C-alpha cells in the first residue's frame, strides 16, 4: 500500500458533465470527511473540489479499502444529493506516493489548471486543507504535504511570471487601466451599457478598488439596478450613480475610465459630442470599447489625453499574456521538481530504519563522550567494566523505543508512525546528527551497535 495517494478527476480526463456530477459543495465535503474520520478507512484525508477537479488525497490506514477508487465514488454518492454520473473509462486517475506529491504541487502551482497560472487554485487548495483540519482528517503527513504545497504555489508566483498578466477580457481591461492609473480608488469608472461583458469588466475594476462608479444606460432603471448591484460588492465603490445616455458627455468629462458595451449599431460616444469636452482635459482618460459594432468613434483616440482600446486590443493582450505564461512553464516545473525532491528527502528521513540507526549513533556518541570524560579515573579492568556498563545501559535505554518503532513499521498506521518517528528525531536531535556524521564510518559503527542491541534484546 502506498503512503499517500490521490484519486480524482479533472478537466484533463473528464468532460464538464462528469466533473459537475462529482463536484461537492462545502457542506458535502465536510460530511464526506466526517464519514472518513468515523469509519477509520483512511488515516488522513482531504478533498479538493473545484469546478475543474474533484480530488481525494489520502493516507491509507492499516485496514484501508481494497479498491480506493470505488470507495471514493461510493462516498461521493453518499454525500451528494444526486448519485454520481457513470464515469467514462479513464475519467478517474490514481497517483501514488511521489507522483501524488508531484501532482499536488503542480495543482498548487497552477500548472495543472485549465488556464495555467490562474491564481484561484491556491486559495481553493487552502480551503480544502482548512476543511480537512476542521474535520480532523489532516494528520502528520497531510499537514506537512499541504504546507509544502502552499510554499510551492508561493514560490512559483514570486520566482516566475507564470501568474502575471491577465487571462480574460475583464482582467485585461484592469491590466490596461493599471498601466495608466496609479490608484484606482481615486478614479471614476463610467460604464456605458449594462451588458454582461461590461458588467464583468466593471466587477473586475470594482474588485481592484475602483473608487467611483457611474452607470449609463438607455434604460435608466437598468442602470440604477446595476449601479446598486456593483455598489453592493465587498470592495464596492465609495459612490455610485446612474445616468441616461443623454447625459453621457458630462459623465465622460468626470470619468477617468470608460467601459463601453452597448448593443447600439452606431457609435454612442461620438467625436463631435465629446471632442469639445475632452479638448479641455488635462488628466488621462482611458476608454475601453468592448462592443461590436464599436460604441466609440475611433477619432477620439487621437486626442491628447485619450487612451482608446477596443475588443481586439484586449484579445491581443490576453494572447500575449498566455504566450508569456507558457514560456514560464519550464521554470515553474523546475521549482516543482526541486520541491518534490526535497519532500521525498524529508519523507525518507521519517522512515523507521534510518531513524533507528541514528538513534543508536546518538546513544553511542553520548556513551563515548562520557567515557572520554570520566575514563581517566579508571584503569585496566575498571576501564573495561566502565565500557561494558555504559554499553549495557545504552542498550537498555534504546530497547523499548526501538521495539516501538519496529512495531509501528510492521503494523502501525502511516501517520502514527511518521509522527512518532518525527518526535523521536526531534527529542534526540537526529536531523542534526544526520547532517553532521560522515556516512561510511558512522554506518559501520551503527552496525556494530545494532548487533549489540540484538544481544540486549535477547538478554531482555
Amino acid at each position: 500500500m502506498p503512503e499517500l495517494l490521490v484519486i480524482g478527476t479533472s478537466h484533463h480526463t473528464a468532460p464538464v458533465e462528469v466533473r459537475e456530477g462529482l463536484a461537492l459543495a462545502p457542506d458535502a465535503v465536510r460530511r464526506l470527511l466526517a464519514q472518513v474520520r468515523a469509519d477509520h478507512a483512511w488515516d488522513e484525508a482531504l478533498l479538493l473540489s473545484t469546478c475543474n477537479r474533484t480530488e481525494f488525497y489520502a493516507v491509507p490506514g492499516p485496514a484501508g479499502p481494497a479498491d480506493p477508487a470505488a470507495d471514493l465514488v461510493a462516498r461521493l454518492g453518499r454525500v451528494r444529493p444526486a448519485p454520481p454520473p457513470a464515469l467514462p473509462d479513464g475519467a478517474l486517475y490514481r497517483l501514488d506516493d511521489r507522483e501524488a506529491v508531484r501532482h499536488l504541487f503542480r495543482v498548487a502551482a497552477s500548472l495543472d489548471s485549465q488556464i495555467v497560472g490562474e491564481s484561484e487554485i491556491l486559495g481553493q487548495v487552502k480551503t480544502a486543507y482548512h476543511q480537512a483540519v476542521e474535520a480532523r482528517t489532516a494528520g502528520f503527513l497531510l499537514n506537512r504535504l499541504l504546507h509544502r504545497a502552499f510554499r510551492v504555489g508561493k514560490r512559483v508566483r514570486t520566482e516566475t511570471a507564470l501568474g502575471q498578466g491577465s487571462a480574460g477580457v475583464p482582467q485585461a481591461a484592469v491590466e490596461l487601466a493599471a498601466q495608466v492609473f496609479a490608484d484606482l480608488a481615486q478614479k471614476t469608472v463610467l460604464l456605458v451599457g449594462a451588458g454582461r461583458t461590461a458588467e464583468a469588466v466593471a466587477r473586475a475594476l470594482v474588485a481592484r478598488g475602483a473608487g467611483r462608479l457611474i452607470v449609463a444606460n438607455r434604460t435608466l432603471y437598468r442602470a440604477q439596478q446595476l449601479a446598486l448591484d456593483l455598489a453592493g460588492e465587498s470592495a464596492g465603490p465609495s459612490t455610485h450613480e446612474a445616468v441616461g445616455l443623454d447625459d453621457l458627455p458630462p459623465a465622460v468629462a468626470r470619468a477617468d475610465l470608460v467601459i463601453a458595451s452597448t448593443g447600439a449599431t452606431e457609435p454612442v460616444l461620438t467625436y463631435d459630442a465629446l471632442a469639445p469636452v475632452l479638448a479641455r482635459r488635462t488628466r488621462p482618460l482611458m476608454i475601453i470599447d468592448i462592443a461590436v459594432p464599436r460604441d466609440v468613434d475611433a477619432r477620439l483616440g487621437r486626442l491628447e489625453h485619450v487612451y482608446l482600446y477596443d475588443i481586439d486590443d484586449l484579445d491581443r493582450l490576453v494572447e500575449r499574456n498566455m504566450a508569456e505564461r507558457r514560456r514560464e512553464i519550464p521554470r515553474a516545473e523546475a521549482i516543482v521538481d526541486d520541491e518534490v525532491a526535497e519532500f521525498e528527502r524529508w519523507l525518507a528521513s521519517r522512515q523507521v530504519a534510518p531513524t533507528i540507526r541514528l538513534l543508536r549513533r546518538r546513544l553511542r556518541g553520548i556513551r563515548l563522550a562520557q567515557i572520554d570524560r570520566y575514563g581517566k579515573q579508571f584503569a585496566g579492568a575498571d576501564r573495561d567494566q566502565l565500557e561494558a556498563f555504559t554499553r549495557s545501559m545504552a542498550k537498555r535505554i534504546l530497547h523499548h523505543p526501538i521495539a516501538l518503532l519496529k512495531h509501528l513499521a510492521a503494523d502501525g498506521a502511516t501517520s502514527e508512525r511518521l509522527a512518532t518517528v518525527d518526535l523521536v528525531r526531534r527529542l534526540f536531535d537526529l536531523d542534526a546528527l544526520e547532517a553532521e556524521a560522515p556516512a561510511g564510518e558512522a554506518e559501520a559503527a551503527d552496525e556494530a551497535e545494532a548487533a549489540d542491541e540484538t544481544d540486549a534484546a535477547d538478554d531482555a
Partner: protein
Amino acid sequence: MPGLIAVAGAMLPLLYLALLVDYAATFFLRTRTHARSPHLLAVVVLHLGYLALWGMHAGHPPVTSTPEVLSVLALATAAVYGWVELATRDRRTGVFVLLLAFLFQYAGSFAMVGHAQDAAGPAAGGLWTRVHVLPALVAYTALGFAGVFGTLYLAARRNLRGHRFGMLFDRLPPLEALGPMAWHALLTGFVAMTIAIAVTPLMFGDGGGTMSARIVGKIVTGSVAWAVCAAGVFGHWLGRWTPARTSAVAVIGFLLVMALLAVSGVLS
C-alpha cells in the same frame, strides 16, 4: 591607503554592474519586483566608505575634480534611487536609474586613472566654490532622475497610445506615477541649478577673475540647460503643459546637463 583606494576605485564599477544585472533580471523576468534590495544598500555603503577614504587621503571633500564629481554623482543617484525604492516598494525602474549610476562611476573610475589621489581639482577653491558645488551636485542628480523618468514616461505613453503590448508594457510603473516623478525631479533639478548658477559670480571671485575656456563652456552650456529647465517648469505651472511635454523637456534638460558635465570634464 593609496593602494586600497585604487583597488576600491576599480571595484566600484564592477559592483554597480552586478547591481545592474540584478535589476535587469527583475525587469526582464518580472520577478522580485517589490522585494527589498540589500545589495543596493551594501553598494551604497561601500561607495560611501570609498569616498570617505578618498577624502581623508586627499585632505579635501571629493568634489573638486570631474572624476570625483562623477563618483559622487554615482553614489547620489544610487542612494536617492534606494530611497525612492524604499518609499514606493517598486524595483521596476531600478535598471534604468542604476544604469546611470554605473555610467557615472565607470566614467569616474576611468577618469581617475592617472589622476593623483591627493591632487585637488579646479573646484577646490574658496567658500563660494564650495557653496556652488552642493546645489550643482543636487541638480545633476535630480536632472539625471528627470531624464530617466521622463524617457520612461514617453516610452510607456508611446507604447500605450500605439497599442503595443511589447517588452515595456506592464514592466513599468503606471503613467500617473512616472509623470509626477519626472516633474518633481525636473523641479528639484531646476531649483538646485538656479542656486548653483546664482552663486557662480561670487565663486568666480574666488578664482581671481580668470575666465578659462572651461568656465566659459560651463557658463554657456549651463545657461542653455537652465533655460530649457525653466521653460519646462514654468510651462508646466503656467502653461498647463501636458506630462508628455514636461517629460520631453526633462529629457532635453538632462541631456544638456550631461553635456555640461562633459564640457567640464573635457576642458579641465
